[in-house]
């Protein structure tokens, strides 16, 4: 019964998302595109944070390299969109393998500091390598070509791009979900709860953590590959450590214990930002207050709290 209701709600949400360009005002196409992309970014982060228990402060490095990869390929090679996304994922995976290899050996705050340090190094490279990355201005002025697979889609049309993003994010979310539900995902959860015990069971914790880190980085790269054509610019802000904070905030806001939590967090984050900045420039202050309240009173995030409440009502 419970799963049936949940599935029904999920189906309704997906139907609603598909219908956005026809029912919502034009501007909300952009808002929902951003929500989906940042939701995927946050969900990829939650694989290492919520599931494996590693707090990374450098996740924007993978998001950012994904956006630069797509921008560079569009500018210099003009490949189809899907090929750009594969390059983004590949570049992010390689970077995650290098950073992960050096970072996952450490725990807790040392891991967090090391990922932060690597994140800042990647930012510094993008910021200073003017001939390739165009420095602080970032890469802009690229045009969107074909989609790939022989499909005739006008990606420059915002509603077409929204549906493309919705499809890709949905597929990516399903893959991520299957990974979380697999025996591999179960081991990650076990690592979060008790790494010693997992290692006494004969499993190499470091390898599992590294694989999780690379998978998370790869999906963050995919999200980055989607954001560059959406923003029409790949800029160092996307790699900055403050960008690494966004998936953390979104995951906590939505609920780290649930697969869809980060998506809910992303929706809350982007919608609140849009509405609040209409009235005041101090949106960060309002966000800070909301987050403090969430962490003090609603540890399970929006989704967790809502599910708890629903279960309570059911009784």
């Amino acid at each position: 019964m419970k799963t049936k209701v949940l599935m029904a709600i999920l189906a309704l949400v997906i139907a609603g998302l598909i219908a956005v360009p026809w029912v919502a005002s034009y501007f909300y196409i952009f808002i929902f595109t951003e929500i989906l992309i940042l939701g995927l970014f946050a969900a990829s982060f939650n694989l290492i944070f919520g599931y494996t228990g590693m707090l990374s402060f450098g996740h924007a490095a993978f998001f950012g390299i994904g956006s630069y990869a797509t921008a560079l390929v569009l500018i210099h090679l003009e490949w189809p969109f899907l090929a750009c996304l594969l390059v983004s994922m590949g570049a992010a995976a390689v970077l995650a393998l290098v950073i992960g290899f050096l970072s996952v050996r450490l725990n807790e705050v040392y891991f967090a500091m090391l990922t932060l340090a690597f994140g800042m190094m990647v930012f510094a490279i993008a910021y200073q390598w003017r001939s390739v990355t165009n420095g602080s201005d970032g890469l802009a002025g690229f045009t969107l070509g074909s989609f790939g697979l022989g499909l005739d889609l006008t990606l420059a049309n915002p509603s077409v791009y929204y549906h493309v993003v919705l499809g890709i994010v949905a597929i990516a979310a399903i893959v991520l979900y299957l990974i979380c539900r697999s025996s591999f995902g179960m081991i990650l959860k076990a690592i979060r709860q008790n790494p010693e015990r997992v290692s006494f069971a004969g499993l190499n914790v470091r390898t599992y953590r590294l694989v999780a880190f690379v998978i998370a980085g790869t999906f963050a790269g995919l999200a980055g590959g989607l954001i560059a054509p959406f923003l029409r610019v790949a800029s160092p802000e996307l790699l900055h450590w403050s960008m690494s904070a966004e998936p953390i905030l979104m995951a906590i806001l939505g609920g780290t214990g649930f697969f869809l939590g980060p998506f809910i967090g992303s929706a809350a984050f982007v919608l609140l930002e849009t509405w609040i900045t209409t009235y005041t420039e101090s949106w960060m202050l309002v966000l800070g207050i909301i987050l403090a309240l969430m962490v003090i009173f609603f540890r399970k995030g929006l989704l967790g709290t809502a599910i708890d409440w629903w279960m309570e009502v059911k009784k």
Partner: protein
Amino acid sequence: MKTTSIKKMLVATTAAATLGTAGTSYAEDPIRIGGLYILSGSAATYGEFAQKGINLAVDEINGSGGILGRQVEMVYEDSQGKASVAIQAARKLVYSESVDALVGLDSSGVAQGMVPTMPELQKPLIITHAATPDVTGNLCNPFTYRISVNVAQNMKAAALVAADTDATNWTTIGPDYAFGHQSWEFFGNYLKEIKPDVNLMSETNFPRFGAEDFTPFIDRVMDSDAEGVLISVWGGDLVNFIRQANTRGFFEKDLEVMFTVGAATEVLSALGEEMPEGVHLSTRYWYEAYDNAVNDRFVKAYINAYGTAPSYNAEGAYAAIYAYKNAMETAGTTEGPAVAKALSGMSLEAPNGTVTFREGDHQAMVSPNWGVSGPMHPEHGIRTLTNLQIFNGEEVARTIEETGCKL
């Protein structure tokens, strides 16, 4: 919608005034113009001054019947000086706030990112401050115009000023983004052309935009063989820079110092007497440089309303609103493509004289101003400009071929 309290007051007054003169009907919705400026951080005064100029123009226009019989209303968004933020904000203004036209952009980096997206939005944009040559060059498009001086124009003028000095070894201190790098590039190329024996030093200095500490760069220039230095640091950064340079004795050294946006009144008011005398200062518009009725009225009204001399950013923003008035009335509509088309080749009387948007690249033929800082102004509390040079807008502009713009 963000409106300043002054704006609200003005709207209230004009609304009251219109009610008084019965018979005029304003049944139609107001024309909405979106403003995208830096409204937070170290360069926020530029956004504020632009808003002041715009409010003045909107008030005048609404007081005399509006545009096409409709009132004008402004909607502002903070670009934060970031391209990604500005692009989203422009989409919000066009699709959510339903603005008919856009003005703004303080940063070259933002302009480079945002301008290529303008044809999608199908609304005209008049850039009032950002100076990168690219947006009226290789990135030009039918919807983008600029009413303010660009880097190429100002650096041509700067090179002419520099060529008149005895300095041969030149270096630069500029913000580490498009504006700083392009200022140096254009200045160097023009100067080399005019005076082939100059030496453009390979040691250049590009501090981060928004950097608090400029002393390492100041020291480096003081320790070098430089005889002339082009400084394109601007905004709050420039205020910090000059204070730090003062304590280091930078201005006592025998250097030709040229500030490419040093005569911005935002900076001059913040510094007062701390701005040294005898340095070359430039601005895109100096309020005492133009002897015409429009300028007299603008300067008087501005000082009356705000108590300070108008800055170039206020002037550009003020003129842009009038440009839209002209274009919308010529086109007879507020439809984006028609208004954009009407702007091409259009001339208007602005505080800095007759301004024409060149058809080939949509760059306004406006005149850069260069002068040397002089004694304090008795009333305005800022340095005066002596040896004022008003360069001819067309003479310092690149040819259409040189811009790389194909329209």
